[in-house]
């Protein structure tokens, strides 16, 4: 069978399930007693197991299977949710994610899962709490039997049969355990009726047990005879047959009347049924959310078509303007409104909640804080804020870096915090929210803040600036130094940050997404990194300008201001033309010269200037004319023209002509 056609579905779904497991694990960690969460995780793990087994990803299937066992044991109250359990489960999820990622990138998804599977199985067997096992076993059996089985047991006792529990221990070296189990069940079948087995028969048949299992049965035979019969099966190490005292099952005392016991049993059956239906309801509500899965490529096709529509709209607008025909103008205006609504609708379709990215952070912070001996509470708000998929895919790494930075440099050690009169536990707040056409993501810690002097000192050490300039800088400018390349304030290079990738990488990543990042800090109180991102990457607001006869688009996010200055205001610094822009000396660049545009004979008294910025550095571009602001569709130049200087892409204007979009980062020195 050709599995490739199912691979996409598999990848999508497993991602979804892993996501769900992750989310629920975080919830479980905060609320370890909540069985419904365990159930949710169990369900996801179970589906994942089935899918990976079908697709032939054995390691995935193995690991999920063992996770399932642990979760099942928790459900059945055999073991408690402990830190170790949560850690190990998280570890498993990480490994699963790794495997799925490997499958996505065309790998075979194979990983060494043996270690973790062992760890899980020892957790499942409750080896961290060994004393519970013996005494709890009979109670467990009571819980394991359903009401129907209990009533059968009760009835058979009434008919003079004897209930037993049989503990079978196979030899450690037993090879075909399932076959052995079959033979044992066969042997039992001749003498007794099996009511229940633990683990369940299905698992026994699939060899999903170590070497020991328990069977509950009813028989008219002597226990010794049953024992002898089972022992006759080879490779059985030992058999224990114990008469079962039904009264211990429900924990009801013997002198209570049977009728009462039955009533009790029925009642509890009802309540448990009620419970299960309500949770079932919830589940159906959640999954029946009337959503459908659409391949992202199809959305891209739709987006491309829409982009053409936007271009045609622009064309119609300019035609209508020229013709000045009443009805035409009206229709075009209506169409404009429609298309902008359509654009909104399309964009929302591509939006995904940032939760997807945020979800992994609690886990990360948790292990980081353990590693560093810090106490940290991560508070996430606004996880439901939606972002375009293209941005979501890219934003994870920078955020990881910033959070690591906050943990490592921001939050102080508990002792230091106590001495400073703060709570031992530091707080990192990760916040996302929407405003206008932008998304804001903030990472705020209540740590020690940024040490201004230390930053300056490091910057001077690294030759990023000289002492004289350092004296002139205000706090804001100093903090921006953190983003300079090759900068790290860490005294020692720790494992967590200072691996040679600094905040400069974060910054350039965010800028490549059309966003900006800034930092504020109050010494002793903490610091805050703020990221501003556009909602989508494919449609952007630009200012159209003319250089000679050519029209270029400058992204509005790069523009500080457009101004007109008299030519006499141009000054020279080191033989380079500069202007004074709001008290700052800004280099002046002729766009025509830089881009090699054919000179047009124009000698105006004034310069039309667009001041653009890259981070904190600014450049003034001389242009010939401002045309105006417009929303354009970003189009790639294609692979043939890769990395063209100062051009980040192209767009098609209303008249059908191609216009290039300037990449201001290249123009700013």
């Amino acid at each position, binding site marked *: 069978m050709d599995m490739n056609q199912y691979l996409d579905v598999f990848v999508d779904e497993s991602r979804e399930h892993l996501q769900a497991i992750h989310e629920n694990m975080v919830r479980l960690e905060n609320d370890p007693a909540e069985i419904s969460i365990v159930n949710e995780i169990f369900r996801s793990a179970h589906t994942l197991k089935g899918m990976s087994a079908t697709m032939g990803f054995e390691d995935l299937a193995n690991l999920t299977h063992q996770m399932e066992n642990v979760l099942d044991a928790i459900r059945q109250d055999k073991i408690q949710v402990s830190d170790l359990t949560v850690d190990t489960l998280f570890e498993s999820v990480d490994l699963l994610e790794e495997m799925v990622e490997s499958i996505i990138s065309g790998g075979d998804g194979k990983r060494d899962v043996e270690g973790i599977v062992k760890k899980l199985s020892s957790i499942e067997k409750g080896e961290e709490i060994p004393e519970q096992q013996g005494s709890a076993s009979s109670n467990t059996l009571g819980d394991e039997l359903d009401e129907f089985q209990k009533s059968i047991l009760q009835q058979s006792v009434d008919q003079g049969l004897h209930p037993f529990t049989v503990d079978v221990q196979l030899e450690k070296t037993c090879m075909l355990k399932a076959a052995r189990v079959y033979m044992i069940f066969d042997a039992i079948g001749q003498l007794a009726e099996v009511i229940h087995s633990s683990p369940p028969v299905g698992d026994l048949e699939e060899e999903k047990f170590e070497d020991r299992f328990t069977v509950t049965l009813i028989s008219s035979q002597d226990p010794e005879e049953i024992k002898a019969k089972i022992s006759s099966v080879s490779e059985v190490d030992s058999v224990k047959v114990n008469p079962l005292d039904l009264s211990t099952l429900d924990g009801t005392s013997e002198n209570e009347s049977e009728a009462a016991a039955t009533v009790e049993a029925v009642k509890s059956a009802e309540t448990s049924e009620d419970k299960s239906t309500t949770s079932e309801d919830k589940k159906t509500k959640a999954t029946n959310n009337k959503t459908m899965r659409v391949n992202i490529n199809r959305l891209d096709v739709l987006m*491309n078509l829409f*982009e*053409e529509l936007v*271009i045609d709209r622009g064309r119609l607008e300019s035609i209508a303007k020229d013709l000045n025909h009443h009805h035409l103008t009206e229709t075009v205006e209506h169409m404009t409104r429609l298309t902008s609504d359509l654009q909104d609708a399309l964009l929302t379709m591509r939006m995904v909640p940032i939760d997807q990215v945020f979800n992994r952070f609690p886990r990360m912070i948790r292990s980081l804080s353990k590693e560093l001996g810090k106490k940290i509470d991560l508070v996430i708000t606004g996880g439901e804020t939606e972002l375009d998929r293209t941005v979501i895919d890219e934003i994870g790494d920078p955020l990881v870096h910033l959070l690591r930075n906050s943990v490592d440099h921001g939050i102080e050690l508990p002792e230091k915090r106590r001495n400073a009169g703060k709570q031992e536990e530091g707080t990192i707040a990760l916040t996302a929210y929407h405003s206008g056409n932008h998304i804001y993501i903030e990472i705020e810690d209540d740590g020690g803040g940024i040490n201004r002097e230390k930053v300056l000192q490091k910057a001077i050490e690294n030759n990023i600036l000289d002492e004289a300039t350092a004296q002139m800088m205000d706090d804001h400018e100093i903090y921006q130094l953190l983003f300079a390349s090759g900068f790290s304030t860490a005294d020692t290079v720790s494992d967590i940050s200072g691996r040679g990738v600094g905040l400069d990488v974060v910054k350039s990543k965010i800028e490549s997404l059309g966003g900006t990042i800034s930092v504020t800090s109050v010494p002793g109180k903490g610091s805050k990194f703020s990221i501003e991102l556009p909602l989508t990457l494919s449609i952007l607001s630009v200012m159209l300008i003319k250089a000679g006869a*050519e029209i270029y688009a400058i992204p509005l996010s790069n523009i500080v201001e457009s101004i007109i200055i008299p030519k006499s205001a141009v000054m020279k610094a080191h033989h380079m033309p500069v202007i004074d822009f709001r008290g700052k000396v800004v280099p002046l660049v002729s766009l025509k010269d*830089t*881009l*090699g*545009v054919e000179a047009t004979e124009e000698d105006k008294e004034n310069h039309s200037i667009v001041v653009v910025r890259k981070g904190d550095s600014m450049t003034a571009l001389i242009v010939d004319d401002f045309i105006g602001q417009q929303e354009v569709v970003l*189009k*790639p*130049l*294609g*692979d*043939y*023209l*890769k*990395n*063209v*200087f*100062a*051009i980040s892409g*192209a767009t*098609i204007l209303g008249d*059908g*002509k*191609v*216009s*290039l979009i300037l990449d201001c980062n290249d123009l700013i020195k």
Partner: protein
Amino acid sequence: MSEMKTVETEIKAIVFQLIDEEYGVDVHQVRSIERLQEITRVPRTPAFVKGVINLRGVVTPVIDLRSRFDLPEAEHTDETRIIIVRANELEVGMIVDSANDVIDVPTNTIEPAPKVVGGIDAEYLDGVAKLENRLLILLNLDKVLNPEEIIALREFKEKGE
């Protein structure tokens, strides 16, 4: 039998002119043939890159094939065409003097290109086909559209500056 053989051993080629020579490219590599339209110049690219055009919503780069082969450039006329080709997973338009024919070229008429044909380096050619009374020069588009060369040329140019 012989008919079968001819079917298998022919390629369909789009024929176009540069100066006074006839060239051919495999029809499978040709997307469309367009009339000349407004080209937006892309700054700081090699001289043979004329810029980009709007090809039904897709921004497509256009090169001047004469200038690509260091032949003298000419004024564009009514006959001038842009052949949109696809090779190396790239889609590029090539400006040619004219394009007006599709012919079947039996593969047994194709000979390796001589060292110099009309000034074009042999490495850009797949060979030369001799047909009854015409000579068809078959282009190796993978080489002609090699983007590495653009980068190499650009670096050369920047060093020169």
